[in-house]
């Protein structure tokens, strides 16, 4: 156990597998995410990273293995139960609700922490109204944290791509998670915007949140992740510090091709 009383490993994945027909998207994969860390999940395209995030968040059921969140097995739990247990996520492609304002999106994220029943909310009881006001203030605070408080009443779809990504993060934070899964949070962003997302992730970690980032951006992983797991063809490839993983020959081979291949081509010439 850590000093905070939380288990040192917040997320433990053990021999998890997922097949789509004859294709093994994730196979016998094991990894651990330490409490209060920023963990990275790397791998080339098609490595199975997003499938793994879908398995962790309950969007897909796993075929084998176990996934534990603070010692609670979650691999058979539906997505909404996993969210209540404390896992929130964002998506590779931004998936905001059409027709909702920025504030409403974040309030939808606060649904599990609304502090009132649906019935009381429908009747508009004083207690329910007070709880709703509290949630609204909390949602505005979250928007302030991602520098979007001044966009609260705009339709989310009218925002720029980078802003929409930040709304998605604020919405996920609305569930008051213990573990935040960010699926390629900087995809389509320039270096400065990516750096800002990295800083945001660090500030969240400093606030006690554990973060798992699926990321292609090697520089971002190097700069902002405490620990990295690399996978390829659905299998575990390497783990360690970002520097160790990037220097790992198998990782280099997975990303850039084998050195021996290059030598063979040179010999043929």
């Amino acid at each position, binding site marked *: 156990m850590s000093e905070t009383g939380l288990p040192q490993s917040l997320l433990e994945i053990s021999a998890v597998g997922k097949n789509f027909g004859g294709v093994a998207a994730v196979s016998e994969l094991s990894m651990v995410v330490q409490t209060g860390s920023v963990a990275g999940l790397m791998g080339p395209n098609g490595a199975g990273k997003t499938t793994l995030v879908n398995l962790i*968040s309950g*969007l897909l059921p796993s075929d084998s293995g176990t996934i534990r969140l603070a010692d609670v097995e979650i691999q058979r739990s539906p997505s*909404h139960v996993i969210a209540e247990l404390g896992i929130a996520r964002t998506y590779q492609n931004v998936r905001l609700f*059409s027709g909702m304002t920025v504030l409403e999106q974040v309030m939808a994220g606060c649904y*599990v922490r609304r502090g009132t029943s649906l019935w009381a909310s429908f009747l508009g009881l004083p207690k329910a109204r007070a709880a709703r006001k509290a949630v609204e203030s909390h949602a505005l605070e979250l928007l302030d944290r991602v520098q979007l408080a001044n966009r609260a009443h*705009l*339709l989310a779809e009218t925002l720029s791509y980078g802003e929409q990504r930040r709304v998605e993060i604020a919405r996920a934070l609305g569930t008051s998670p213990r573990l935040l899964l960010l699926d390629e949070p900087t995809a389509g962003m320039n270096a*400065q915007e990516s750096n800002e997302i990295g*800083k945001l992730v660090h500030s969240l970690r400093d606030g006690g949140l554990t973060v798992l980032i699926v990321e292609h951006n090697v520089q971002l992983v190097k700069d902002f992740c405490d620990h990295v797991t690399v996978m390829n063809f659905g299998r575990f490839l390497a783990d360690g510090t970002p520097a160790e993983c990037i220097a790992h020959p198998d990782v280099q081979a997975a990303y850039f091709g084998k050195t021996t291949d290059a030598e063979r081509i040179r010999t043929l010439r």
Partner: protein
Amino acid sequence: MQGLWDFWAAYRSTLAFAIVNSFLALSTYAVLSAGILSFATVTYAAFGGFLGARMVLATGIDPMLTLPAAALAGAVLSYLVALIFLRLESHWMALASLALILITRVIVINIPVVTGGVNGMSVPLPVSLELLAVLIALAALVFWRLSVSWYGIAAQSVREDTAVASSLGIAPRKIQTIAFVISGAVGGLGGMLLAGALQFISPDTYFVNIAFTMIAGVVLGGSYHWTGVIIGAAVFTALPVIAQAIIPEFQDVANGIVLLLIMIFLPRGLVDPRAIRLRNKFQLPVAQAIKDTSSTKLDI
């Protein structure tokens, strides 16, 4: 003044049927607002209508008591329907609800003791326009409260993206079951009111023609806000009547033409909150907001 009075006398019953159809369209909207296309309202309406009418005939109770009974019956039936339907994918659910309409008709024909069979039955429930006005006002109040409550946020989230809503802790099946029950209650009540407005019901009363009217009302008015549904149902009820008075030849095709025009030019219906929001005051500072964006930097 006399002309106005004549107009009112001539179109009073049209207004009554517009309100009754609004109930049926609201029933369809209730599930649509949670991402489900279902025509099962016809079944709830039949259940509420026949049950209410039989209660009055068999027991002689106050007809007004049949209204909550019909709503309750519709709610219970819709809960049972939800238990089965929510196991299906959305497109299969829509087809299953059409199958349910056919099953309903066969059942209605084959239990003459309750329904009067193919001959139908008369309904001793006078439904006044004042009563209908009060009831639709109450229904509007309920749908308004639903839309501004946590249920409204959850239902909209489930409709827009069920998987994302679920990953935020919203239980889609729970929200959709509630939607079914609301649909059943409103549909059952609508069926009873239809019986009262017609004073006679038969297997043909609750069939696909109702399904068309309610879906057309939802498409015309807009499936994104409950007010649009009421407007749509009213327009679709009044249009053939008005067309008959002005251009009799136009009567039969009026609804079809209007439906086509709406789908082509206003695919989200007459009342579209998204379009309104894009135009409203919140969007006025957009120019300023864009200006701010260019200079905004995260400083965390």
